């Protein structure tokens, strides 16, 4: 197992280095003629008004939160799915109960209108 993770670690380093080197190389080849107009923030040619980092709306948070809850629960179901073939029928139903609780949460969120974009 450690060898496998060593390979993944090496792959990570290579996968980061490859684009980084390409970008650095292009930085050497490319011209560097900067001026204030060029580096000004793009806003369709209009003067920039206000800060760029505007406040996003709460809906984004709701989506991220529902996602987090689902993600945690689904990921923990993976060992259950791996052991599926050894499980007796009632243990399968334990996993299904787990999912049904989740489905109940989804329907609550749906009814509450938390999943509406507008």
């Amino acid at each position, binding site marked *: 197992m450690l060898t496998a993770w060593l390979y993944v670690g090496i792959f990570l380093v290579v996968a980061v280095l490859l684009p980084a080197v390409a970008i650095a190389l292009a930085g050497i080849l490319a011209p*560097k003629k900067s001026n204030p107009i060029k580096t000004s*923030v793009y806003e369709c040619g209009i003067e920039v008004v206000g800060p760029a980092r505007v406040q996003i709306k709460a809906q984004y948070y709701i989506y991220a939160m529902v996602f987090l809850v689902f993600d945690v629960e689904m990921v923990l179901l993976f060992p259950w799915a791996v052991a599926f073939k050894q499980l007796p029928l009632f243990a399968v139903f334990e996993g299904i109960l787990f999912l049904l609780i989740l489905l109940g949460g989804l329907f609550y969120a749906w009814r509450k209108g938390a999943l509406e974009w507008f």
Partner: protein
Amino acid sequence: MTNWLEDPIRWIAEWLYSVLVGWGILPSVADVILMITGAAILSTLALLWVLFLIWFERKLIGRIQDRFGPNRVGPWGIFQSVADMIKIFTKEYITPQGADKVLYNLAPVLAVASVLLIWAVLPFTRSIMGVNLNVGVVYIVAVGGGGVLAILMAGYASNNKYAFLGASRAVAQLISYEVPMVISLLVPVLLAGSMGLNDIVQAQSVPYLVMAPVAALVFFITSMAETGRAPFDLVEAESELVAGYNTEYSGLKFGMFFVGEFLHSFTAALLFAVLFLGGWRGPFVDQVPLLGLVYLFIKTMVIYFLIILVRASVPRFRIDQMMDLNWKVLTPLSILSFLVTAVIAKVLEGQFLFQVLGLLAGNVILLVLFMEWGERRNKRNRRPMVSQPRPLATPASDETSMAQS
């Protein structure tokens, strides 16, 4: 020593290993050197492959839209992307004022790296693969998080409203579609009894497309959304957000986002082929393992062709429609399909043929019932498509209004 005709890559690796050890290098160090070489070759090939993918997609889209597509550089314009690459290498980097320099430069690198990392666990033939992690499927989900992070970084660091809003929106889309994707990934794991991608391929004596068509469908749609291709390319909805999170990027930094996106959709096709179409499995693959590479390639290209076809023929969604599709259609559907699969697979355990048929029947019935339910729901909630024709102005009403005024 393996036979070089059967498995040339393994043969080369073993030969290199013996040469390195022969030079007096420690076996463990030789192992690490081989790993570095393998990783470097695989990721370079993946990145170069993108050049072909870009040409292929442009040509195909051109043909579908009754244009020629690239046709100037080389035969059929096949070197167009090479020319583009050379050009983009000599383009200036423009860093906007007020940008968060470190995060701004890190984002494109991370965008490519997060896609490349998936290639570390892909099985190309029975023996040619990076590593058969025993948690391969969750690894893919985890690596996908890197892409989300890259978009968030790019959007935050650019100091641009369009980039910021585009990034928030893109992240909301990506994380939402990850939910049904993870659930549909559970199904092959459950059927194969392992999370290693190679184990999943090995367990597919019948492709899981037959045993779990609903999960396959959900995975196809969600992986298309994860890659941000059209119908789901709201991130780059030009009419609303200029170019989304990469508005302020130029030169190769922009190119890296572009490369990452193309590579991601190809990787999604590869994953689909591995998880649901039996990967390298095919006739005579036991005698000639290298044939598996050809089978995998053909299956992947078929799926990739389908992805491009969808891109060319389906119009872009509106963002609320897209979120509704995810949370109100795909998520319940994938949970239900998972429940159906689990119950049927457990009840019919042991009799393989009945299990396959039962799963197929269960999935089809589920899909039909679900579509029926969706249709009813839509009918109830549907707004009239065309507003009622307004009555034409009559002289009588004209008179009254004039009288009033």
